[in-house]
């Protein structure tokens, strides 16, 4: 028993030694390489890992496409419809569908109760995000959860008539839809 304990203790000490050697090698190699990483990232990873956007097929929410003739404005929808921009606030401020409200969607955190309550009085909810630049880009699909997830969650939270815009803001712009700048009303 004592021998085993001693052996485990020795292994643990050696493991710390190997760890230190590996860290030292890593730091030296990183310092001399051309495509080195900063030891602490200067920019947030948020824009790389969380863009609650693009659209996908196979959702329980019904896809709604903004009509080109409606200029992509919320007036193109039946009365009582609210358009939800699910992107980060900074992206929303840079430009959004006129009249849209910003409900930032984090699929890990879910939708805040207050946001759900705010949307409840409306007869219908249409969600949109950025839309993928390249539909064939698998990486974008992995790093950008689809806005249909938000549509699904809103439905599950008791909202009726929840849809998402196919192609997102990108498709809206490509159809000649107008963009409005500024923060959440």
């Amino acid at each position, binding site marked *: 028993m004592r*021998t085993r304990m001693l052996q485990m203790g020795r292994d643990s000490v050696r493991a710390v030694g190997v760890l230190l050697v590996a860290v030292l090698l890593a730091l030296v190699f990183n310092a001399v390489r051309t495509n080195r990483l900063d030891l602490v990232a200067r920019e947030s990873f948020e824009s790389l890992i969380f863009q609650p956007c693009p659209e996908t097929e196979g959702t329980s929410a019904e896809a709604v496409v903004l009509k080109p003739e409606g200029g992509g404005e919320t007036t193109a929808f039946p009365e009582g419809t609210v358009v939800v921009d699910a992107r980060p606030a900074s992206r929303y401020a840079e430009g959004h569908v006129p009249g849209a409200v910003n409900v930032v969607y984090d699929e890990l955190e879910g939708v805040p109760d207050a946001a759900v309550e705010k949307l409840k009085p409306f007869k219908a909810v249409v969600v949109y995000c950025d839309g993928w630049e390249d539909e064939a880009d698998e990486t974008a699909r992995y790093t950008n959860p689809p806005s249909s997830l938000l549509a699904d969650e809103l439905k599950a939270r008791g909202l009726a008539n929840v849809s998402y815009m196919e192609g997102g803001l990108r498709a809206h712009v490509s159809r000649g839809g107008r963009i409005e700048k500024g923060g959440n009303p």
Partner: protein
Amino acid sequence: MSRGTLRTWVLPSLDLLARVYLGGVFVLAAWGKILDPYSFSISIATYQMVPESAVNLMAIGLPWLELVAGVALIAGFWPRTQALLVNAMLVMFILAIWWALAHDLKMQCGCFASKEAEADISGMTVIRDLFWLGLGTFIYVADASRFGIDGLLQALRPKSVRGEQGGAS
């Protein structure tokens, strides 16, 4: 099969197979990450389990730990120690994947650099890592690294010294 044959040949042979396989997996996993640390940093960040300030440090250091442990495991240098490190990493990976699955994250595990080698994480990813964890545990518990640097050093030692050290690797 006699106990002696089992101890002298069978266990060390199985140990060698397990070490080469598991070490190879870790070397392969480390290689792509060392070549492209930026992509690996995004993979780590995607799990959202590590503070952003620590993501790059982990992206720089972890692949080298995988490489060093993998190479040493294959070479049979302190194999129990390497198995301990490999298992510690595997436990960390399993917890991370389990956490991501629990949160319904649709992502690749970031275990290997090649996109072709990676499907979305799933229960199978956890089972695969558990299998590797089992191999690591076997290497640690069997302590039968006759074939490798430790075994060679052991064989070169004078018999009297070997006797005093009880043949420990």
